[in-house]
């Protein structure tokens, strides 16, 4: 019984961890909390609708490419010009961009949610003893693990990864050793875009529609996850996101029916408690500018 809840919660936790990583990566490289990140996921959802009738690999590839292009355009057209401005300016730019993308989606796809035909092959359930594991949960957990490992290898083993981490710690010094910050920041947006596309595919596969406002709740989760995990720390971000998703699903499963409406309230109360105990997050990174 409890084990069943835990399995379901691990699924949600994994998805939230991925959401948080994409946001936290860009934050740690350039101190930008990109609130338009949720709209990247939303755009991924619409790409899925447009590509729904294509073979699965075209759908996956097309969605990733579409989101990465938008992510790169964001960096080039909106964030690069304000890179040396104050954190507040960058923040407001990201809010404006989020609104712009939402309204554009609303004009392009209409005010009503657009239906997304279900992927019946994903709703298969496996039985292990008296536990049920859906194929979607397995895919979500596996994808998250693979993404986290790939991201870790990328950051640890490649030149661009080392340069990314160096820039995260000390931008000025990274310039002094000849790191091209444009390239490094653009790479962060590419990775963030890939993560947003993966999140979109995992998230909307379990939904029946995509709406122009779909990104809002996602970026909130990612933001809170990154903050409680510890801004600037990748491990912290993944952990924070995971805990958000895990706790939320557990609350929904364990609370008596009449109290379930309070699941959000309880979750965010817990968030406040965590931040009171550890204001810099669970895993506080050193020397982070907020």
């Amino acid at each position, binding site marked *: 019984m409890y084990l069943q809840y835990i399995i379901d919660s691990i699924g949600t936790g994994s998805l939230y961890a991925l959401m948080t990583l994409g946001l936290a990566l860009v934050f740690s490289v350039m101190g930008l909390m990109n609130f338009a990140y949720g709209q990247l996921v939303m755009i991924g959802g619409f790409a899925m609708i447009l590509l729904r009738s294509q073979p699965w690999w075209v759908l996956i590839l097309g969605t990733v490419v579409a989101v990465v292009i938008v992510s790169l355009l964001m960096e080039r057209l909106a964030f690069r010009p304000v890179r040396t401005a104050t954190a507040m300016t960058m923040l407001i730019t990201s809010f404006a961009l989020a609104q712009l993308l939402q309204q554009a989606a609303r004009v392009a796809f209409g005010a009503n949610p657009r239906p997304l035909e279900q992927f019946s092959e994903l709703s298969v359930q496996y039985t292990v003893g008296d536990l049920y594991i859906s194929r979607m949960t397995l895919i979500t957990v596996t994808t998250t693990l693979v993404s986290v490992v790939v991201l870790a290898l990328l950051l640890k083993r490649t030149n661009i990864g*080392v340069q990314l*981490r160096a820039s995260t710690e000390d931008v000025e010094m990274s*310039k*002094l050793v000849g790191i091209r910050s444009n390239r490094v920041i653009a790479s962060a947006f590419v990775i963030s875009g890939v993560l947003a596309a993966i999140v979109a595919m995992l998230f909307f596969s379990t939904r029946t529609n995509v709406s122009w406002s779909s990104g809002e709740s996602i970026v909130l989760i990612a933001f809170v996850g990154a903050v409680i995990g510890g801004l600037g720390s990748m491990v912290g971000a993944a952990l924070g996101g995971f805990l958000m998703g895990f706790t939320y699903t557990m609350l929904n499963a364990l609370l008596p029916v009449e109290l379930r409406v309070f699941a959000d309230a309880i979750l965010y109360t817990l968030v406040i408690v965590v931040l009171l105990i550890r204001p810099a997050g669970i895993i506080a990174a*050193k020397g982070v500018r907020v």
Partner: protein
Amino acid sequence: MSLLELQGLRIAYGEAVAVQGLDLHLDEGEFVSLIGHNGVGKSSTVKAIAGLVKPAAGTISFTGEEIQGKDPGVILRKGIAVVPEGRRIFTRLTVKENLTVGATVRKDRSAIEASYRSMIERFPVLGKYSGRMAGLLSGGEQQQLAIARALMSEPRLLLLDEPSLGLAPQIVDQVFDLLGELRAQGTTIFLVEQNAAQAIRASDRYYVMRTGGVIQVEAKGGDSADVSAIEADYLHFGKV
């Protein structure tokens, strides 16, 4: 032609003028020091050469080409590497990663690997802790790492901003020994220091910087009376 030449350099932060009319030059293979007290504009001068601050006026020429106002990456690629004030090693990168990131401007992987090996031969402690987070090194080890990281770009000119700051006297001696060795191997060195006595002893020539950027040039072994006058003046001033 001098390797590096500053003419009429003026650096200002908004209204506040940090350096006013600075002239100095370095020849290839020379070890030159710039000494002066807190706040006279030594670090500002280093930052201007390295491209971190744009001078308000004046020129900075390297191998005859004006480089003032260019980006740090461009200046590094021309052959000027910096060991900045406070070392600024990447604490969350390993020692080896700090060194490889120092070679960002170089392309040839196997040549970089060879430099890495010769670097850990020269600095055995860096080899010993190569896989360790650099933030865990002691102050002296971090200073060695900062110097080694700068050398990884194979610079023609090495700028050092107070490398002896915060180090025990023995370690300071080691740092100066190292600079002497580098000099002997042909690296041109521009050292900024408050530790006047040691800097003067180690270098071929030195400049004294006073508030407002006024500079007096003294060649070592030149008019000795004049030199000791400046030293006395400087050291006396330093006691305040």
